């Protein structure tokens, strides 16, 4: 039977990545001083599982490498070795190395043998260093070393097989064993009802028979003994070579118990720790397949043979490292991405689709011979259709939703490594890992998060001495949390480090020309904090190799903006900093407030709207020549006239009594003057950039129920835009411009 194993490779890669992640998580949680047994077990099982599957699917490099890991972990598990921080580091590096190996196998790219060998060597040293001798020589197994000389075509053996009485209760059957002997040879069995007890005392589950079997054909003693391998302790077995020209094989009458299990000191057998262990064991090979002089047990195990040659010189592993022949120059394949979806999510969709079908048949029945009397049926059918569609949409979106834990999972490792490098003590706390968000959003939030966490480790958390001196716990804490808030997901990164120094920030901002010195005194605390997101601002006193990579917080904010999210920072000097990122759950759909301006309809993202009100003359103020502000409960906010911003003709310049939508953004609040407030609804975002170009003040477009196109307002962009196109009085209300052009400057 030929089965193409490559069809299982994708599963193997996915599964192994998950295992590696489990390993990493467990390793990071492991306290070397008091190792938790369950954690060790998890780590061991992961390595073990990867090894088993890697070997089966022919990834010998991975199998070999994980064998070392497994050997080491086995000792830890058996408590015959202690584990220290350095060993954990080596294990973590090994996890990294395996990830690289897996990627290389998947993409068919070259592997970094140097790194593998270095690490393999480090693992061997760990294993030999302490647990030397504790590891049973795994390589040498009976099948691996066919010490038997070439058998003549026609060999003849006499097998005397006397099962112990308990043989049957392990599910073994003498008749099957005898049948197996006859599979590739002629076997003639003769039964000896030697010790059958009296009927009264006969226990039917006991075996009281013995056999003499004559095996003739192309067989070896090796192959015969292998048939009895599983029952070697439950029977008396003698194999006698009756072949006339029997070669000198002294084992003939030796008792099976030691000959079968004894390690064979064959020349290719490697030192104790070598990773070939199970591969050559031919417990399951056809007896006839047992090779005569080749160390490889079966022809389809060619990679194993290669491998068997390698451990002969474990200290000089580099030169012997075998290379998978196919991987040498194969072009990198595009990565297949897939997500795992819980079955209940699929079931939901199937359910809803079922309901949709019912609704559809109901509607088509209404439509069959329609008259006005059935209008109520039509209406209720449409309501149902609407509900089904919304449910289906939500259920379909949920498929793309993944727990944010996937984005968080890299941090424990990163924080540990960075903290170690910097000599800091940092504890990372995670919460809300189960919070789900769209896969695309998650992929894109990864880098900004890394940057923020790195900043926290690098700049915010002080060195232990400094912390102790200021009366803090020498161990700093960084807390990463996620939660849902309305249609958004909130991610908070808080630390108990030194906090942001407003004076320092202000000083630097003035120095960099980001703030006019004369305005400096007017900035409140939160405005100053927001300066760290300004382009060209960096608080790092020296560019470190951790954070100072030319990517500042401005890029972080830009990335978050592009996802339709916002970022905010709160800090208290000496106490810590908290950065809050708010992201939409998905990029495809937005809750919007429809507003009318002139004959145009715009969509304002509901999340940015604080309130809507009618403009009252009392609260209206004019500042300078062009500025207009509105006083809401003693807070002055800028007024943005959409007519002006987008060049829409309006009948009257007077805004008194009109409606104003108050929106809030990172840069503050603003009031958008509109002609009318329409419905609130979910809109599907269509990108403008794909078909046109980026337009300041607009986040995209959508298609409304009646087929018209409505533009979606980008609040922050609009505020910026309105600053450059202030309202001029008296207004030169003449030029009729298309809406989009007003922003295309």
């Amino acid at each position, binding site marked *: 039977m030929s*089965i193409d194993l490559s069809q*299982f490779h994708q*599963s193997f890669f996915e599964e192994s990545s998950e295992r590696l992640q489990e390993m990493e998580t467990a390793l990071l949680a492991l306290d070397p001083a008091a190792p938790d047994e369950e954690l060790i077990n998890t780590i061991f099982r992961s390595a073990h*599982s990867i090894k088993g599957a890697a070997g*089966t699917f022919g990834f010998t490099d991975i199998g070999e490498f994980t064998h070392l890991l497994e050997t080491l972990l086995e000792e830890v598990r058996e408590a015959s070795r202690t584990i220290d921080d350095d060993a954990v580091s080596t294990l973590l590096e090994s996890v990294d190395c395996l990830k690289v190996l897996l990627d290389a196998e998947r993409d068919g790219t070259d592997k970094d043998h140097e790194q593998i060998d270095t690490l393999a060597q480090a693992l061997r040293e760990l294993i030999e260093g302490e647990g030397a001798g504790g590891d049973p020589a795994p390589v040498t197994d009976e099948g691996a070393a066919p010490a038997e000389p070439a058998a003549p075509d026609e060999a003849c053996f006499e097998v005397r097989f006397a099962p112990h009485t308990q043989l049957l209760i392990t599910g073994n059957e003498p008749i099957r064993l005898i049948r197996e002997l006859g599979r590739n040879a002629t076997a003639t069995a003769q039964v000896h009802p030697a010790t059958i007890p009296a009927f009264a005392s006969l226990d039917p589950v006991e075996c009281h028979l013995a056999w003499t079997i004559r095996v003739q054909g192309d067989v070896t003693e090796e192959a015969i003994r292998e048939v009895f391998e599983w029952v070697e302790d439950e029977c008396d077995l003698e194999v006698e070579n009756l072949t006339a020209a029997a070669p000198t094989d002294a084992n003939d009458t030796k008792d099976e118990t030691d000959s079968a299990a004894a390690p064979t000191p064959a020349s290719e057998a490697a030192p104790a720790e070598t990773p070939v262990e199970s591969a050559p064991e031919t*417990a399951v090979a056809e007896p006839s397949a047992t090779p005569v002089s080749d160390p490889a047990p079966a022809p389809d195990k060619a990679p194993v043979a290669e491998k068997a040659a390698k451990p002969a010189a474990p200290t000089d592993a580099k030169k012997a490292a075998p290379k998978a022949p196919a991987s040498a120059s194969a072009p990198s394949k595009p990565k297949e991405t897939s997500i795992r979806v819980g079955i209940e999510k699929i079931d939901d969709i199937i359910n809803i689709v079922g309901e949709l079908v019912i609704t559809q048949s109901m509607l088509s029945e209404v439509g069959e011979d329609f008259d006005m009397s059935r209008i109520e049926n039509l209406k209720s059918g449409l309501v149902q259709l609407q509900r089904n569609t919304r449910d289906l949409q939500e259920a379909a979106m949920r498929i793309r939703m993944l727990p944010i834990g996937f984005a968080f999972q890299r941090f424990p490792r990163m924080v540990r490594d960075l903290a170690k490098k910097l000599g800091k003590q940092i504890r990372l706390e995670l919460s809300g890992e189960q919070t789900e968000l769209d896969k695309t959003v998650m992929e894109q939030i990864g880098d900004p998060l890394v940057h923020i966490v790195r900043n926290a480790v690098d700049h915010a958390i002080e060195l232990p001495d400094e912390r102790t001196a200021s009366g803090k716990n020498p161990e700093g804490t960084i807390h990463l949390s996620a939660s849902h808030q309305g249609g958004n997901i909130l991610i908070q990164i808080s630390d108990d480090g030194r906090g942001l120094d407003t004076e320092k920030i202000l000083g630097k901002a003035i120095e960099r020309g980001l703030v006019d010195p004369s305005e400096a005194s007017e900035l409140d605390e939160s405005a100053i904090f927001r300066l760290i997101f300004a382009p060209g601002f960096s608080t790092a006193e020296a560019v470190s190799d951790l954070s100072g990579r030319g990517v500042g917080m401005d890029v972080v904010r830009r990335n978050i903006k592009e996802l339709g999210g916002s970022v905010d920072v709160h800090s208290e000097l000496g106490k810590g900093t908290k950065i809050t990122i708010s992201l939409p759950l998905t990029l495809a759909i937005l809750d919007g407030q429809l507003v009318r301006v002139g004959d145009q309809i715009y969509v304002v993202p509901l999340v940015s709207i604080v309130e809507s009100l009618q403009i009252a003359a009392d609260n209206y103020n004019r500042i300078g020549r062009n500025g207009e502000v509105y006083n809401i409960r003693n807070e002055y906010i800028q007024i943005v006239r959409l007519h002006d911003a987008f060049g829409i003709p309006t009948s009257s310049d007077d805004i008194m009594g009109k409606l104003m939508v108050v929106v809030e953004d990172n840069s503050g609040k603003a009031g958008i003057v509109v002609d009318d407030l329409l419905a609130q609804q979910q809109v599907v975002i269509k990108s403008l950039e794909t078909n046109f170009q980026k337009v300041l003040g607009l986040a995209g477009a959508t298609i409304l129920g009646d087929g018209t196109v409505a533009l979606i307002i980008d609040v922050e962009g609009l505020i910026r835009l309105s600053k450059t196109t202030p309202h001029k009085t008296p207004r030169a209300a003449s030029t009729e411009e298309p809406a989009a052009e007003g922003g295309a400057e």
Partner: protein
Amino acid sequence: MAKILAVDDSVSIRQMVEFTLKSAGHEVVLATDGTEALDVAKTRSVDLVLTDVNMPQMDGITLIRELRGLATYKFTPMLMLTTESSPEKKQQGKAAGATGWIVKPFNPDQLVATIARVIG
């Protein structure tokens, strides 16, 4: 043609075992660990149990011991899928009542051949 209960916590191995055994004409029931396998085995009868050793919840050796304790599985062949080459693991398995073992890594042909040894 036999009904085989295959137990492994590794998805890829499960897929491979299932595919191989089905190709060889067997009926396959899958379980992801010992606990699940035990539940499955109690609710239906199988002709052969093929189990991984290292699994969360309940390992393969415990599973074999539990199954052997059940009247319906007294003589059912049970094979361990193991990467452990150390004789101790095999002995532990034997002591628990395992019929035999298949050493990982194995290829589909080996799997089918080994299974042929203990059924029929």
